[in-house]
């Protein structure tokens, strides 16, 4: 968890097995005045969600132990977190690559709500921020995308 700044509004949790990505996104989101928590081990996700109670989650799909889908399904089926917006952040293309296509198929098959959005790596920070804001309903906030 990065800092405990009470002035910062919404809480975002980053889940990715790559430490670099987690560090990158954490610093970027922190810069944009979000409270950030992160997990690289899928086993740590649920305990952290319950403790941190994020307003939004950035979730990778392909990870060891548990897939992104398993985490997604767990959250969407949990009444406490089913309303939490989740953005999928993946190096796989949404329409072409197998894991992403398979993710979509599984969502349909399990009658789960679609994610709040997809962000493909390398990350377009401006777009990511816009998506986050739109999901959190904070469109009037200033954007610091680092440029």
């Amino acid at each position, binding site marked *: 968890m990065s800092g405990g700044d009470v002035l910062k509004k919404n809480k975002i949790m980053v889940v990715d097995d790559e430490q670099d990505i987690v560090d990158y996104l954490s610093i970027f989101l922190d810069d944009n005045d979000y409270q950030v928590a992160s997990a690289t081990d899928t086993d740590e996700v649920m305990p952290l969600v319950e403790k941190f109670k994020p307003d939004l989650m950035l979730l990778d799909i392909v990870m060891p132990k548990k897939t992104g889908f398993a985490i997604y399904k767990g959250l969407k089926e949990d009444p406490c977190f089913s309303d939490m917006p989740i953005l999928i952040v993946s190096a796989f293309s949404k329409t072409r690559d197998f894991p992403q296509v398979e993710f979509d198929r599984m969502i349909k098959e399990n009658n789960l709500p679609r994610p709040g959005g997809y962000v493909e790596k390398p990350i377009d920070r401006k777009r990511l921020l816009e998506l986050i804001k739109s999901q959190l309903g904070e469109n009037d906030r200033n954007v610091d995308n*680092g440029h």
Partner: protein
Amino acid sequence: MSTMDIKEVREWVCSELYEQMPVSVAVIDSDFKIVDANNTFVQTFGEMKGRSCHEAIKRSRLYCEECEAGKTFVDGKVRINKVSGIDRFGNKISYLIHLFPLVAEDGSIPYIIEMAADSTLIDELQERYELLFDKTPCYICIIDRQFQVIQTNRKFRDTFGEPGGRYCHQVYKQSPNICEECPAVRVFQTGAEHSTRQRGVDVHGNTTYYMVTAAPLIKGPDGTVETVMEIAFDVSRIVELEEQIKELFDIQEFVIASSMDALIVTDFKDRIIIFNRSAEKLFGYSAMDVIGKRGFFNEILPGEFTGLLKDNGGPKQIRETTIKNRDGESIPVRISGSCLSSEDKFLGHAAFLQDLRKIKQLEDEKLSAERLAAVGQTVAGLAHGIKNIITGLEGGLYVMKTGMRKSDVETIGKGLTMLDSNIRRISHFVREFLSFARGKVPEVDMTEPVSIAAEVFELYKYAAQQEGIEIVTDFQDGVPPAPMDREAIHTCISNLVSNAIDACQMSDKDSKVITIRAYEENETIIYEVSDNGIGMDYDVKKKVFTSFFSTKGSHQGTGLGLLLTKKTVQEHGGQVRLDSEPEEGATFRLEFPRNRLPKPGGEEHVDS
């Protein structure tokens, strides 16, 4: 005698003749009383003078029903009568009795001479011949020149019904016309015997086949055949069997002709008797040219196959070999066949050849398609890997810039570390990718397949032990050497064992076991690596051979290992199979059919 005059001689002869002639003669009066009888009569019936003739001949007091002597007494006509009687010894005898009236000067008939000739033997013979005629188990009929059936035996009547004065074609065939190849016509024309096979209709309306021989029976004084005897045998069953055989033969002919396999058969003298259309197509010879040719079987078929046939025994097969066609072109074939024999009698040889060219072509195309697909997957995976690295680099740069903006040395350092680690990832990635993409031609040498697995076991057993994992082996003895790239196969098995160790490490099970098997089955060399680790779910299994797919976390795997394994196996003409359920472990199986292995020295495949 010399003293006798001619009259006396004549009387004496008459008297002797009367007494001694081998016919019983009696003179009876109109009361049927015997007034005189000759010696033969007495010898046969006893002394009967003064007694009635029926008493003498039949030992009966009643007049004979069939006796016609009464009529002769009235009309004076000579009559011949057939009578059966009993001789003085009580034996039954048949007689042919001639009745002659002795007419007095006044025209009255006081006496009749009865001459009874013994016909017992003739009757017996006649009866026997009639019986023989009637009971003969073939159809017999006698036909006159008008083709009217005048006599038939019982079997004939049972089959064709009572002729009742009908013509032979009406009886035999229920046809109003004379038969086309009527044997009787020929006999009437030529006087010589003649045989044909005919189809008739029996009394129940069923078709019946018979073999009929017609022969002249009675000829007139000028040699004209008056009647013909026809003897016919029922051959319906034979015709039925013939038809069945013909049907079978036709089917066989059709099957042989339309078979996709080339079929070559020789007789016991090693002469070609079957060379079907597919054989013509495969070898380029026409059946006309080779049928009957001796030694041709051995000439065109591979020695390794004809050699096998010499061992007799059951069917022989060579899964893959080559033959040369008429133009000298080598053609890959599968060949099977056997030595034909019946009850220890050698009948010949048969060979079936399957042209493998099309199959080979399809296999090659499949192999190319698989390789192309692998390239496609690689490119997709490459993009994914690069995107991850770019994200890492971009992240590093962002973090560094953020640090600089905030004059935060720690953040700058973090950014630099990220840049550094991702640049190192690029190097590692490029190295592995190159070894994958370079498409190194397998360096193939004859090597003992099991020994490769044994080496991998030696390499990993201590490392595994340290992780609390037991490796057990199951190696088959005596698997013959095979052309393989030892180093590449070693890498493949190592990859599988390394993966298995990772899968076990991730598992919570107390007893973690990896099994390495190496054996040969159906001419296929098989390596199996099983573990009881975490296993794989459907998603992972589906993508496990895709480039850059890794479950090992950020920096542990490039995701190229299994893809490299698959590529190596494919280059050896083999395939990788995976069997896994979540929490139940996984089994990877590398299968190398011997006939698809590359040739030693870098040539493409054993079979090409």
